[in-house]
């Protein structure tokens, strides 16, 4: 996928000014948060389960090479073919080659963020192979001129019922429907034909189980089951960090993933797929391929950002992020939005291509609090800011500004005078209100938020006054 993260500020400003999007985001806001909180209630030991999940993920990523070799061996024993891709281009090349080898003209796809990273749909189309997205949200986006997803779990969360009604009416040439069940049935009927006629199914992988050489898939719609059951070829595209040791570990992680993602105690379908169809079996693929993708992951191993490899892609961090809730996912400019995206995009797509993302956070730590595998996201964002500064990637004005601030900060009297004048100026600017709607010196800062106004005195002035009162009363 093309990286548009360099335009984050402009993208965010555009999102804030988009009245329709703001309405849709406002409508979506909070639903995931409430559902998750409700779903956690029937876990007696949420903290203990989180700790167990952290241990499981760490166990693998701390010895990732060994676990990958083990998974590869077990998968091959089941009759699967294991391939490795360094980057998106190699993913596209391998999948196109597999398709050509089996004479494939159509591919049905269950949701795969890795294929978004690689821009696989475009590559398949260029090779004359038709890719069909089958997750309802992904399908909506594909038929809407291949719009990118704005959320990793609910890709079309930025669209309203009206948007989808107009779109289906236009694309399917059917009478405009305004009920969500009717629109869902329409998509079902269109996609059923594709499920039955596609020669190849393509899925992501929520987990790879080293014990058995299996892939585990979590879905609700049943499209994941369709693409892995009906076509004669199944290709799994997944990141190298997705391995877990045992089926027991899978059970532990499954107590957290659906709850954190959609607020379900378990998703409707949870499929563990191992090897290919036996000769006397009625359904299932005859050929199974795993494409294990690096795309920047190997270079994160052992670095300051190692913990990020624990991520199980639940989306809880973005659901709880005040910045994501306000601007939506598209502004982040690449595959992964929200706090996890602001860490992953610089790591996988280049720090210089996503200069603003580590700053697209208030560091309120809501993301860190809800993360089921306890990734310290605010710490990682702060670390990325440090790296930017070390590599001289911050803009000149900011660097000069910080030098200036440092110079003043080392002169306490000058600093106190400046702070005192600044506080009084801002109070005057706010007038009777306790907030400033538009800060003329930094208008873009107040575009999507208010600036809390100082109440007149600086901290040091208040402190000094309190000390004085205390002394007088003794």
């Amino acid at each position, binding site marked *: 996928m093309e990286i548009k993260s360099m335009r984050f500020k402009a993208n965010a400003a555009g999102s804030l000014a988009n009245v329709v999007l703001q309405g849709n985001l406002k409508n979506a806001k909070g639903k995931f948060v409430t559902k998750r909180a409700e779903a956690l209630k029937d876990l007696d030991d949420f903290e203990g389960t989180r700790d167990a999940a952290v241990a499981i993920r760490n166990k693998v990523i701390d010895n990732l090479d060994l676990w990958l070799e083990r998974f590869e061996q077990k998968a091959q024993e089941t009759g699967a073919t294991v391939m490795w891709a360094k980057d998106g281009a190699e993913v596209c090349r391998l999948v196109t080659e597999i398709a050509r080898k089996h004479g494939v003209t159509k591919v049905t796809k269950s949701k795969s963020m890795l294929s978004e990273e690689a821009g696989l749909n475009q590559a398949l189309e260029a090779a004359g192979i038709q890719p069909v997205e089958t997750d309802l949200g992904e399908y909506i986006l594909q038929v809407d001129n291949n719009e990118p997803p704005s959320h990793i779990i609910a890709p079309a969360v930025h669209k309203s019922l009206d948007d989808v009604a107009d779109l289906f009416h236009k694309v399917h040439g059917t009478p405009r429907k305004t009920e969500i069940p009717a629109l*869902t049935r329409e998509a079902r009927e269109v996609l059923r034909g594709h499920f039955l006629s596609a020669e190849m199914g393509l899925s992501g992988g929520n987990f790879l189980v080293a014990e058995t050489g299996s892939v585990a898939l979590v879905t609700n719609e049943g499209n994941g089951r369709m693409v892995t059951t009906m076509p004669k070829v199944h290709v799994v595209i997944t990141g190298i960090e997705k391995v877990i040791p045992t089926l027991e570990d899978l059970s532990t992680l499954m107590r957290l993933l659906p709850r954190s993602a959609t607020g379900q105690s378990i998703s409707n379908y949870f499929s563990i797929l191992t090897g290919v169809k036996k000769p006397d*079996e*009625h359904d299932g693929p005859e050929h199974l391929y795993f494409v294990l993708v690096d795309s920047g992951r190997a270079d994160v191993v052992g670095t300051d950002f190692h913990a990020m490899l624990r991520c199980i892609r639940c989306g809880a961090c973005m659901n709880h992020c005040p910045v994501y809730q306000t601007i939506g996912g598209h502004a982040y400019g690449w595959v992964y939005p929200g706090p996890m995206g602001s860490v992953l995009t610089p790591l996988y797509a280049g720090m210089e291509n996503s200069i603003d993302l580590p700053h697209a956070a208030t560091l309120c730590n809501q993301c860190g609090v809800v993360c089921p595998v306890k990734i310290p996201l605010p710490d990682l964002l702060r670390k990325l800011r440090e790296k930017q500064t070390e590599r001289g990637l911050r803009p000149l004005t900011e660097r000069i500004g910080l030098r200036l601030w440092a110079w003043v900060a080392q002169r306490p009297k000058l600093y106190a005078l400046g702070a005192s004048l600044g506080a009084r100026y801002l109070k005057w600017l706010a007038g009777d209100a306790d907030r400033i709607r538009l800060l003329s010196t930094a208008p873009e800062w107040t575009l999507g938020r208010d600036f809390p106004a100082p109440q007149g005195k600086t901290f040091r002035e208040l402190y000094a006054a309190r000390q004085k009162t205390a002394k007088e009363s003794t």
Partner: protein
Amino acid sequence: MSSREDILGRVRAGLQRNAGNAAVGREVMAAALSGRVQGPKPAMDTTPQALLERFRVKSEAQSSTVDIVAAVDDVPAAIARYLTAMNLPTTAVAQPALATLDWAAAGLSVEARGARDADMVGITGCFCAVAETGTLMMCSSPATPAAVSLLPETHIAIVHATRILPYMEDAWDLARKELGTLPRAVNFISGPSRTGDIEQTIVLGAHGPYRVHLVIVEA
């Protein structure tokens, strides 16, 4: 250099891999694979009656409907009652494993085979069930093809009460004991297929069944 060697090489470099820490890593791996340590699980009353009750409550919470019969011979009549009451077709496909039940006596026209697109009702058994979440565990095989629980708009599953287990971990133990290795497909099913992709409004019946009906056999 192949991509495999390139990727693994950079992972090893990141981990500062050497003979010493590789040996330690292999021990950790062997211990994890043989130890199969279980994480914390929600507390549960595991008496047979309590398991059945929890399974029923959780299944209904997932929008499945539940019927309980005394013996397996009562199943065809119970399914016929359900289909008639719901105004659904009485023609169905059943997994070959269920071919021996007397469907015709209950007035049902049942073909025991794999599923086709036109099948409106699919009848299956299940390998076992999980009380914690109200979940069916389906294992694929020639006698139990996976698509029977997927293609039809109505999925009816027969659950033996003795095979309702507390946790998913127990289901893995049973599979290891009875099957040895995992079948091609293990599908855990918890209610009818659904989507929330339009305005986060849950709609039942996405690509799989619109309804799931469970017939629990007590004996």
